C-alpha cells in the first residue's frame, strides 16, 4: 500500500477516534517528531470539525470555569510556567522512549531508495481476496437514515431528484437544529438485528483496504520531503494498522510448536525482486508483559523496535531469534530498548527466510554472546509481510 496514503488514513483514524490507547499515544509521538504528519492530522481535524455544528450542547458544571482559571498560572509567571507545561505534556506521554523519530535517530544507515522516498514505489502485497463490494441492502432503517439527512447515492430508488450529491443544497441545511438532534439520536435501536446477516456475510477477510482511485499528492507540506521520514512513516504504520489485524489472527496461535517436517520446496516469495518492497512487520505474542512491535527490513538490514513494554533490566539485553525449518534458530539482533538496529544477519536471512518464520525474544545476560537462546522466551510471534 502506498506509504503516503497510509499516513493520511492513519491521521484520519486518529481524528475519527477509532485507534486504541496505545495507538493514540504512538500517533502523538509521531506528530511531535514529524511536522508533516502533524499537518495531516490537522487536515483531518479541519475536515471533520464542521460536524460539531450538529452536536447537541450540554450545560457544563457550574464551577468549571473557576476551576480552569484557578489552574492557570498566575500572570507574572506565565512565561516560566509555559515551558513547564510543555515539559509536563511531554512527560505525561506514556512512552517517552524513542520510537524511531526521524530526526532523533542516530543511525548511520544508508538512505532509503529514492523510489521509496516519494512513496510511489512502495508497492505492498495486493490482497487477492477482496471483499465483495458493499451494497446496503437494508432500506428498512429509514429512521437511521435521518441520522444525518445526507443525500445517498447508494439508494438509487431515492425519489428526490435534488438528492444529487454534487449539489451543495442538501436537506439538512434547512432543518432546525433540534430536529436534527432528535433524528440523530434515534437510530441505534433498530439497526443491528436486521442487518447483521448481510454484514457478516460480506465481511472481508483481510484488512488492507483495496485502494480506491490513485493517490493524490499531499497538499499540506510544501517543503521537500525527507525520504527517511516517509520510510519511517511506513514502519510506524505497521504498528498502527498491521498491529490490530495481526493480533487478532495471531493471538490464538500456539506459541511454540515443534517444527513440522520440511516441505518439498519453500514457496517463493513474490516480492523478493523489489528492492523497495514491503517491510516485515511482527507483533510478538504477549507473554508476561504487553506486546512488542517491530519491523524488519532485509533490504536495509534494519530492525526497528517500535514498542517495548520495558527496557531490558540492568546487565541484560533482549535477543531476537528467528526459527524456521530452513534456517534453524538464528539470532537477528540484540537490544536493550526501542530504536533501530543494524542486522547483517537479517539481510542474509532475507525475505524468504522471514516469511514463514517464528520470531521470539529472550532475555540474555549482556556478557553472554550466545548462538542459541538460553533465557526464557518472553515474547514470540510471526513476521508477516506488510
Amino acid at each position, binding site marked *: 500500500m502506498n506509504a503516503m496514503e497510509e499516513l493520511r488514513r492513519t491521521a484520519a483514524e486518529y481524528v475519527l477516534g477509532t485507534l486504541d490507547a496505545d495507538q493514540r499515544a504512538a500517533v502523538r509521538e509521531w506528530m511531535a517528531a514529524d511536522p508533516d504528519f502533524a499537518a495531516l492530522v490537522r487536515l483531518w481535524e479541519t475536515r471533520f470539525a464542521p460536524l460539531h455544528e450538529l452536536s447537541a450542547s450540554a450545560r457544563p458544571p457550574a464551577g468549571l470555569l473557576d476551576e480552569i482559571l484557578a489552574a492557570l498560572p498566575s500572570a507574572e509567571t506565565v512565561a516560566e510556567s509555559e515551558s513547564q507545561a510543555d515539559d509536563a505534556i511531554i512527560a505525561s506521554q506514556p512512552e517517552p522512549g524513542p520510537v524511531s523519530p526521524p530526526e532523533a535517530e542516530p543511525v548511520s544507515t544508508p538512505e532509503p531508495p529514492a523510489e521509496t522516498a516519494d512513496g510511489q514505489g512502495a508497492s505492498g502485497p495486493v490482497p487477492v481476496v477482496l471483499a465483495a463490494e458493499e451494497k446496503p441492502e437494508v432500506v428498512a432503517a429509514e429512521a437511521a437514515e435521518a*441520522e444525518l439527512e445526507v443525500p445517498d447515492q447508494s439508494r438509487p430508488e431515492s425519489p428526490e431528484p435534488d438528492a444529487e450529491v454534487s449539489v451543495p443544497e442538501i436537506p439538512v441545511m434547512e432543518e432546525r437544529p433540534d430536529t436534527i438532534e432528535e433524528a*440523530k439520536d434515534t437510530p441505534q435501536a433498530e439497526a443491528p438485528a436486521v442487518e447483521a446477516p448481510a454484514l457478516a456475510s460480506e465481511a472481508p477477510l483481510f484488512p488492507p483496504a483495496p485502494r480506491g482511485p490513485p493517490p493524490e499528492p499531499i497538499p499540506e507540506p510544501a517543503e521537500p520531503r525527507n525520504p527517511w521520514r516517509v520510510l519511517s512513516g511506513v514502519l510506524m504504520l505497521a504498528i498502527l494498522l498491521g498491529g490490530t489485524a495481526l493480533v487478532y489472527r495471531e493471538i490464538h496461535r500456539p506459541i511454540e510448536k515443534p517444527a513440522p517436517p520440511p516441505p518439498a520446496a519453500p514457496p517463493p516469495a513474490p516480492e523478493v525482486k523489489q528492492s523497495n518492497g514491503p517491510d516485515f512487520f511482527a507483533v510478538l505474542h504477549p507473554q508476561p508483559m504487553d506486546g512488542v512491535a517491530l519491523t524488519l527490513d532485509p533490504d536495509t538490514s534494519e530492525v526497528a523496535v517500535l514498542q517495548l513494554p520495558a527496557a531490558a533490566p540492568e546487565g541484560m539485553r533482549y535477543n531476537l531469534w528467528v526459527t524456521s525449518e530452513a534456517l534453524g534458530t538464528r539470532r537477528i539482533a540484540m537490544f536493550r530498548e526501542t530504536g533501530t538496529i543494524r542486522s547483517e544477519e537479517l539481510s542474509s536471512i532475507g525475505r524468504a527466510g522471514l516469511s514463514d518464520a517464528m520470531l521470539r525474544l529472550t532475555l540474555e545476560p549482556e556478557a553472554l554472546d550466545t548462538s542459541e537462546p538460553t533465557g526464557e522466551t518472553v515474547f514470540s510471534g510471526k513476521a508477516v509481510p506488510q
Partner: protein
Amino acid sequence: MTDPEGLKDLLVAASSGDRAAFARLYGLTAPRLHGIALRILRQEDLAADALRAAFVRLWHEAASLAGEDDILTLMVARVRREALDAARARAESGLSLEPFEVEEEVEDPLASDVRSPELGRLLSCLGQLSEERRRMVLHAYYDGWSKEALSIYCDAPPHAVNTWIWRSIAELDVCLGP
C-alpha cells in the same frame, strides 16, 4: 471560516494573559464543547475533566495558536482529543450504545440556523458512503466508539470493521480533495 463570535480576538487577548477574554471564550464555547465531550464519555465528571484539560492546554498554547483562523476547530479537536483519550483509557467499561440525550436544554451561544459550506461539503461526501459505513463513521466521530464497539454495533468481526473504516476514509479523502 467565519468567526462571528470573535473567538480569534479572544484567543489573541488570552495569549497575552487576558483572563477575562479567556473566560469569555469559555462562555461562548463551553456548552458546545461540553456536549461533544459528554456524548463521547457519557459521564458528567469525566466530560468536565476533558473540558478542563482542554482549556488549560489551550491557555498554554494560546500564543502559538493566535495566528490560526479557525479557533473553534482547534478547540473542538482539543476537546475531542481529551475525551477520546479518557474514553480509551477506561476501555470497554465505558461502552455505551445508548442514544445520547441531553437532560437539560442549554443555551448555546454558537447556535445558528446557518450551516457552514464546509459542513455541506462534508455531508455530501458522507452521503456517498454506503449507509452502514456512514453510520460507522458518524458513531465513531460523535460517540467515540472504538472498533470493538463498532464491531458489536454492526455485529461484524473487528477486521471487517477495520476494512470498512479504511475504505470510508479513503473515499472521504478522495471526495474532500486536497
